[in-house]
């Protein structure tokens, strides 16, 4: 009865986002003269690096079957903290304090969800509004310009023609990938997301993982806040208004299931690329930036419906 070892089935549905990415790249290269140029590609990467860092953290959350609406508000608040401190003290202090603020908000979300056992949707809906309110109150709604040239350089400088922010994004992505694949923490995250109670029975402290997810999200959102403040040389309560939705869209388009337990950060990179390639195409075609919003929603719906159909087909 011993036969050849069962092969792992090739599942095309797992690679939809890659096919889509290749297809879009080819299509745009043919249709748009100035698409496949170094500068344009650089622009695409530069445009999502800031949101990208939080999107990586959102991937962790969705693998763990959680969700965070408050990241945009945390990003806005920390951009203000950073801007104020960068002007009044030094950059190192500003960065450290901003990160601590992010960690603190993240821990708050974590306690509410993991310890209070509240649905993350409701919990972070509340903190999103509250933190946004704090941000607006903090500077009376005014934006805070940053006078430090070092900060501006951090946000706009390049190394060998590649923006620092893009390099930093890839550093974070690689780190996130490594942690997911090669640490006990990463592996247990999949288990908790796959089945909370079963993971608990297997001896995993499930609640702790849920808690840590929000700490990581808060931390990464504050990094995004610092990044945007450096890039545009100002802190603003309106930064990151569409961060949550963009992040979730990219994760989902990348093929990480909202049911939890599967997915990965490279998929998220592919998701980010698909979304921002389309935005870029709109810009090159000279269409209004408002179409971006519409398009983002449309992509998410198409991908989710396609995924649901594939799942149902598989079950039959």
């Amino acid at each position, binding site marked *: *009865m*011993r*036969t*050849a*070892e*069962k*092969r*792992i*089935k090739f599942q095309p549905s797992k690679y939809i986002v890659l096919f889509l990415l290749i297809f879009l790249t080819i299509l745009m290269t043919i249709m748009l003269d100035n698409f496949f140029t170094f500068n344009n590609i650089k622009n695409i990467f530069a445009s999502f690096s800031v949101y990208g860092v939080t999107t990586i953290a959102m991937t962790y959350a969705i693998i763990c079957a959680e969700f965070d609406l408050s990241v945009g508000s945390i990003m806005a608040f920390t951009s203000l903290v950073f801007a104020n401190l960068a002007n009044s003290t030094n950059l190192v202090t500003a960065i450290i304090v901003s990160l601590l603020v992010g960690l603190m908000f993240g821990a708050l979300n974590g306690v509410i969800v993991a310890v209070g056992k509240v649905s993350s949707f409701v919990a972070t809906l509340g903190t999103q509004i509250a933190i946004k309110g704090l941000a607006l109150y903090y500077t009376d709604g005014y934006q805070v310009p940053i006078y430090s040239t070092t900060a501006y350089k951090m946000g706009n400088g390049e190394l060998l023609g590649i923006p620092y922010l893009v390099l930093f994004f890839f550093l974070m992505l690689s780190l996130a990938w490594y942690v997911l*694949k*090669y*640490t*006990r923490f*990463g*592996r*247990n995250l*999949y*288990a908790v*997301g*796959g*089945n909370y109670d*079963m*993971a608990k*029975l*297997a*001896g*995993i402290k499930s609640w702790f993982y849920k808690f840590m997810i929000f700490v990581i999200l808060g931390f990464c959102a504050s990094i995004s806040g610092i990044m945007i403040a450096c890039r545009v040389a100002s802190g603003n309560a309106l930064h990151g208004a569409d961060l949550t939705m963009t992040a979730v869209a990219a994760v989902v388009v990348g093929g990480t*299931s909202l*049911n*939890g*337990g*599967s997915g990965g950060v490279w998929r998220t990179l592919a998701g980010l690329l698909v979304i921002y390639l389309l935005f870029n195409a709109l810009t090159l075609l000279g269409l209004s930036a408002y179409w971006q919003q519409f398009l983002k929603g449309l992509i998410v719906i198409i991908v989710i419906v396609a995924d649901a159909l594939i799942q149902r087909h598989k079950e039959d």
Partner: protein
Amino acid sequence: MCEFALEMLGITKEFPGVKALNNVTLRVKKGTIHAIVGENGAGKSTLMKVLNGVYQAESGEILIAGKKVSITDINKAQNLGISLIFQETNMIPQLSVTENFFLGHVKCKKGGVVDWQGMQEAVKKVFDELGYTINPRCLVSEISAAEKQMVEIARAISKNADIIVMDEPTSSLTSDETERLLDIVRKLKTQGKTIIYISHKLEEIFAISDMISVQRDGEIIDTKPASEMTTEEVIEKMVGRSVQTEYPVRNTTPGEVILKVESVSRKKLVQDVSLELHKGEVLGLAGLVGAGRTEFAETIFGAAKMTEGTILIHGKAVKIRNTKAATRASIGMLTEDRKETGLALKASIKHNIVISNLKGICSAGFWTNSKKENDAAKKYIGQLKIQTPSVNQTAVNLSGGNQQKVIIAKWLFSDVDILIMDEPTRGIDVGAKYEIYCLINELVAQGKSIILISSELPELIGMSDRVIIMHEGRQKGELSKAEMTPEAIMRLAVS
């Protein structure tokens, strides 16, 4: 050295209202395959849950290799070398076989780096020893039900389990897969493992076991070597109880055919089932768990898609695509799980009664009329003797029997002629059961027709005019009132 790997002495376990285990004594010899057979609800699974610390027994003691132990939880059982493999596997489908194998105990190299290679090799080694051909890197969602069971067994062995309990391991397997699994079980025996094998498939039992214990009504009736038992004997012992409940007498004779079902199939769950139901008849559906009775009922009721077959009501073919169509075609169903699918638990009784026929309480066909609603609810509360202080009581506060009556009232208000009752007396106390039986008789006297699904043989025999027996999704036979004996039904249900 003790001859027995496991001894359970005088185990008693009570649940509110039921003695699930009554002074059970079970001795399992080392290195044997010991089968436990019994009807649904005989207490087999409860006994094994006591062994695994899921339940705590009120009295009795457990000895492992002659030493007295106390098992307070699953981990304790595992440390003592006992592994329970449940009917439903305990694995996370999104993760790979390897990861499930090491769930909660991910192996790391120095410095906290996950040792993927090491884990895969460890799994491979166990699989090779058992002759598996499963790729450890496959996702659990991609492997078959049999392979999942096999992985669970391997996982148990890797945890140094000496006593492996398998609870209905083949219930979702095809016959080929079953053969493979049985081969593995035999192999485990040659490796000196002790296996407790729970099943109600007698063929399997006789194919592999050394010893057979028959359990009935929470007691072990007999334990004998398999070679000294016959299928007949086992069946007799499984069902041979005295009928405790009285059944009300019915003086009606069934009339013309009202429902005709012709070779209905639902994928593999239900295959080629045909039956006729007469006006004023109670038709019993017998079978063991997993025989496809509920699945068949759901198909007729439009809750699941029929892949083949026709349904005729009053001789006219009807298409039942959803439950609404079923209601229109005059079919109602009391589901197996009244709390999940039968009632809106947090809604009032009156709302539960009118929920399927809001038209019936509407004025001018549009606005719901609360007077009509109250009147309707009061009428059925009186008629069915539902015990409740008011029509506004929430359904969750009623007893099981009264909840069941509310569901019956719902279908009466929807004016259905055919009522499918799936385990209508499950979890209901004896007195209330009797009331439900009387109610069934009243409905029949009014000309309603009933399909009764029950796992309690006395109930089926006491209430049905005819009984159809199902096994693995297929119809195995039909018995008339005169032919109905527990032995005759069980013989068809286990083959």
